[in-house]
């Protein structure tokens, strides 16, 4: 009691330890675990980061099925800044996925929406901060669908390709056969084989 009394009086006469933030800056220390930045050109789309991210703050949405273009989306408000994605990224050393020391501004009025292209893939699509959460939900569903769609698309494409190939082969074979027939007159040898192969591959692929 008495000691604290003296300490109180002493504190009264000395300068407070309060830092002046936000009027004076208070920078994060080196290697502070801040926002994740992404460089699309370096990415090899291995999906490892999406896989490891505990809250699912990184998502890839397939935007173009034909060309297999995936778009990286990152939700900095869901991210727990755990650094796991950077650890796992094979291209992290080159700067594909970097954890910055700076942190994001809080999301409040619309003007303060972060518009940084590099990180705000998701945020850019949001017009009002309200319902950001539910939008992310929708977005998650969409990503899921797109992934499924992409898988289907891929399988479909493969099957088609295979079919085409098979047809082509068949055609070729026919031509060849004709030629051969013309040459050797042996028709019944290789008619059903290519088709069976296509079926098998079509069954296997989407399962992966």
């Amino acid at each position: 009691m008495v000691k604290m009394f003296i300490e109180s009086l002493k504190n009264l006469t000395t300068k407070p330890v309060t830092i002046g933030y936000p009027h004076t800056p208070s920078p994060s220390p080196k290697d502070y675990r801040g926002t994740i930045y992404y460089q699309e050109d370096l990415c090899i789309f291995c999906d490892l980061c999406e896989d490891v991210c505990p809250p699912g703050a990184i998502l890839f949405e397939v935007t173009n099925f034909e060309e297999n273009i995936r778009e990286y989306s990152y939700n900095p408000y869901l991210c727990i800044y755990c650094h796991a994605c950077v650890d796992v990224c094979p291209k992290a050393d080159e700067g594909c996925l970097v954890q910055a020391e700076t942190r994001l501004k809080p999301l409040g009025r619309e003007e303060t929406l972060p518009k940084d292209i590099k990180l705000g893939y998701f945020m850019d699509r949001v017009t009002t901060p309200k319902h950001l959460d539910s939008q992310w939900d929708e977005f998650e569903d969409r990503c899921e669908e797109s992934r499924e769609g992409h898988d289907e698309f891929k399988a479909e494409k493969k099957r088609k390709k295979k079919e085409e190939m098979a047809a082509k082969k068949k055609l070729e074979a026919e031509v060849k056969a004709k030629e051969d027939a013309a040459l050797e007159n042996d028709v019944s040898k290789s008619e059903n084989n290519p088709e069976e192969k296509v079926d098998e591959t079509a069954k296997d692929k989407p399962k992966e």
Partner: protein
Amino acid sequence: MGNKITVTFGSQHIAIPEPVSFVFETENEMITKVDVDVGYVHRGIEQAAVTKFKFNNVQFLLARVCGFCSITHAGAYIHGVEKLLGVETNKRIDYLRLIVTELDRMHSHLLANGHVAEVCGYENLFMQSVKYRENATEILEAITGNRVQYDYYQIGGVSRDLSAEHIEMIDVKLKELRVNVLKLRDFFDTDYTFGLKTKGVGTVTYEMAKAYNTAGSIARASGLRMDARNEFDFLPYEEVGYKLQTRTEGDVWARCMVRFDEVINSIDMCLYAVNNLPEGEIKVKSKGKPKGETFIRVEAPRGECFYYIKGNGTKIMERVRIRVPTYANIPVLRELFVGSQYSDAQAIVLSFDPCLSCTAR
């Protein structure tokens, strides 16, 4: 009826930041009955650890079982996984882990004591505790990149190394902290009104502590020589000068004092570890998927944290069981209230430093 006053204490109450509710029935402020609800924070982490998360990112989830001992939860899990994977860590890793664990203990203990002072109506003491605690959190922020959620443990190692400047900074700050903690301890020790409020209040006797299998500073304040650091070799504590701290009073005040003694011991350990840091890699390569089961005990700031881990050779764990210190201390806490004053109830609760977020998981 009539003279009974039912006081709800929580779930939203200024004295306990966590949601937990005590329903006290009081007569002239004396508590005659108490109901406890500790289930507000139940999120289903044990299930999530065996469904949603793969074994190599479960530690991020477990770190968020509780912010105060994020390091111990992740640590316990990783010790277990390393055992299942057969990874042998080197000394440097152990030392680095130890430093962060002990720093975590320091900041946690200082805040816990400060909070006891706060609910005793001793705002200034709380402020002083928080003021000095900043040293520990600043160190932690510098070496792990966050003030609370360190995510420092990784399977086979730690996420960052200590540089020379870090070591220098830690050394300076810890020495400063040591002086300040001694000063703070002196305040707690000699303050008359604080003593009135805390001495002889909420006493857990040695017998009670034993019978209820209490853990952590509650057990040690009652004279029970019980510390996972002493009983389980998860980190090289003996090398760095660990000493078991006990008191015999068992009251609120003794719990604060034990925490201060532990903080000082932790500072000494950290200083030693920082200055005698062995050389080596900070990460050992690990391979394979965990298979088998193991039991892990580690000492979290609040006491012993126990993990049971079972893997089945896949990416997903088979079972993760968490038993946390508060979980062990809740039964004795419930017994303490009846017969004490309502005005002391807050101090009793906070002196247990209850962590509902790990109790309910």
